[in-house]
């Protein structure tokens, strides 16, 4: 399959996954009874957004305004290449796979900042500062939580991390690492209980205040796809990836990802919405020391029980 | 046809160095001066890696050197920006022309 075909496949898969996440979100909000509504609501919102007028605010930095959603989607597509879907289905397996994943999500943060900045509106700007502070603060615990599986598998390659979990999934003996990762993932994509930068009651819609129509749709797709991506990486790191008895690899992968996404989305609804300064203290005062403790713990466990891994 | 050897990479880094020098000497805002210093630092790191690749690719000490250099660049940028914030709060401007005297 040539490169263009692969790229097209990745983009289409991301769109479908973004739709899936949107459906899951409605399902967890409305309950299983309203299954049909949950499936149709995202489609209805898509149509509504597409029919909306495409406004560009006065004095906006046009280059940044138009390019921001595309940059966001491109960085997510590039990051998705590293996730192994099955024993032979790897798009891209560099030896520094996981590091590449984290690095490639950096431009996503830049795209969000560009989006907020280019709108030339005070509400957008205050939302931008908060969103940027939150994204930066949570990238650090995310990076540290990821070190646990890397130490256990002795490799940065995602395929190797999956293979190293044939004996025991990492979540079993690295629960703290998984918890930190889950919180950071919920945070970076603005899900409950962390959706203050984007909440309807926030200053005029926060960082995406002036975006309308198709561009806003692209951003929603990007955020949903990012959540799917982070959940998929969580499955790869902590839940054994595509491994499972009976069914072929990709099916297990999909099942696990959907299950994890459901648990995260549903669990997040029970907690009250976290305020902005509380979010930052959570990241720096609680998650960062906890992730350092996690690295120390995992190191000790690896030294003491050499037979524990794989 | 062979790929580019050592010299083209060194020429690129020399050009970057020149641009950095122009920026450091001519920019009015202190933050822009800091950014130009970063350009000079990265030109030096490009030199390091080019030399590693073409002169001693079996010895990874050069990459360790480059990693430490990138780290130092980041720390210097952080400290510089902290200083700029303090200067801005006390003097009300980051214009280098107005920061000529130590006395407030």
């Amino acid at each position, binding site marked *: 399959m040539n490169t263009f075909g692969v790229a097209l496949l990745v983009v289409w898969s991301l769109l479908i996954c973004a739709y899936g996440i949107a459906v899951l979100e409605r399902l967890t909000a409305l309950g299983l009874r309203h299954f049909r509504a949950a499936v149709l609501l995202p489609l209805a919102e898509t149509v509504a957004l597409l029919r909306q007028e495409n406004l560009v605010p006065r004095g906006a930095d046009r280059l*940044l305004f138009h390019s921001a959603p595309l940059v966001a989607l491109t960085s997510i597509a590039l990051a998705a290449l590293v996730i192994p879907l099955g024993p032979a289905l790897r798009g891209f397996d560099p*030896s520094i796979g996981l590091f590449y994943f984290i*690095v490639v999500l*950096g*431009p996503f943060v830049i795209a969000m900042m*560009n989006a907020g*900045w280019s709108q030339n509106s005070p509400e957008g700007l205050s939302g931008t500062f908060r969103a*940027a502070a939150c994204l930066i603060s949570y990238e650090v615990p995310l990076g540290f939580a990821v070190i646990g599986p890397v130490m256990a598998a002795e490799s*940065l390659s995602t395929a190797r991390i999956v293979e190293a979990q044939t004996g025991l999934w990492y979540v079993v003996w690295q629960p703290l690492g998984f918890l930190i990762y889950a919180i950071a993932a919920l945070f970076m994509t603005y899900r409950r209980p962390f959706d203050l930068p984007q909440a309807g009651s926030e200053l005029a819609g926060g960082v995406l205040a002036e975006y309308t129509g198709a561009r806003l749709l692209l951003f929603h797709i990007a955020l949903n796809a990012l959540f799917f991506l982070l959940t998929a990486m969580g499955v790869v790191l902590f839940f054994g990836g595509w491994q499972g008895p009976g069914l072929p690899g990709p099916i297990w992968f999909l099942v696990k990802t959907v299950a994890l996404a459901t648990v995260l989305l549903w669990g997040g609804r029970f907690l009250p919405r976290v305020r902005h300064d509380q979010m930052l203290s959570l990241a720096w005062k609680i998650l960062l020391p906890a992730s350092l403790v996690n690295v120390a713990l995992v190191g000790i466990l690896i030294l003491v029980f050499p037979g524990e891994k794989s | *046809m062979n*790929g*580019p050897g*050592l010299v083209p990479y*060194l*020429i*690129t880094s*020399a*050009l*970057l160095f*020149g*641009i950095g*020098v*122009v920026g450091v*000497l*001519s*920019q*009015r805002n202190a933050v*822009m001066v800091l*950014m*130009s210093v970063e350009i000079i630092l*990265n030109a030096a*790191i*490009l030199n390091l*890696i080019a030399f590693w690749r073409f*002169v*001693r*690719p*079996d010895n*990874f*000490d050069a*990459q360790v050197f480059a*990693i*430490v250099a990138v*780290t130092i660049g*980041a*720390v*210097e940028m*952080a*400290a510089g*920006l*902290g200083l700029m914030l*303090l200067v801005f*709060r006390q003097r*009300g*401007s*980051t*214009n*280098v*022309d*107005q920061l000529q005297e130590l006395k407030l």
Partner: protein
Amino acid sequence: MSGLIEWILFLALSVLAVGMAASMLVTMSMYRAGLALMSSFVALAGLFILLNADLLAAIQVMMNVGGMLVMVLFMVMLMMDPGGEMMWDMKRKMHMPGPGALSMTMPRGAPPSGKERQHHQMMVDMAMSTAQLPWALALGAASALVLIVLVVRTPWPFSSVQPTQDATGAVGTLLLSRYMLGFEGAAFLILAGIAGAVIFARRERAPTSRPAAATAASGTKIFTCPMHEEVRQSGPGQCPLCGMDLTPATEASVHHGEGGGSA
């Protein structure tokens, strides 16, 4: 990969790196200048990949994209016109020739008298580069030229060994064995930098003494120009020096003057 493709990639990435660095100095929008610097560094990371230094390319992107982002945030907070719109408007209205910020260089020589003085003063205030721009250009070009001549004429020792080993493992081993001192020293440096930056940025507890506000005390509203605080009028209008709309004089605008307001 074949030599021709390598050459094409090298030229594209080099032009991008050098071009973006140059455009950082030319653009009027500070935000875009930060982004241009970021793109220049990402192009450099591409050159690192061409040089088989994948680990360093990833480190370069991670440190610089994250670092430049924070720096851009600072610029937006601290600068008067981070988007460059004020400068663009002026450039358009007054038909100044030249690309980007180069059209607004500092005028040289003594200020002329009479009507020209206001225009001169405004240019001095608005310029993005100092009066040393010609010297800076000359010195930069000279240093680049000297370096290029040196580089081309030196007979470099060439090794045709292809790098085969995985860098990550080798670098990790080196950092924890031979270069442990440098590794720990860098960690200390980072800690000192963090502590220093946090201490720098703390707000003082006691209120600093402010110079007494000149007029804006009672009754009459005084209007002033955000850039030229010596301009004072009792009613709204345009600044005679630069044409901007006058704003009511507050304590902050009197005190901070050209800084353009606190963060």
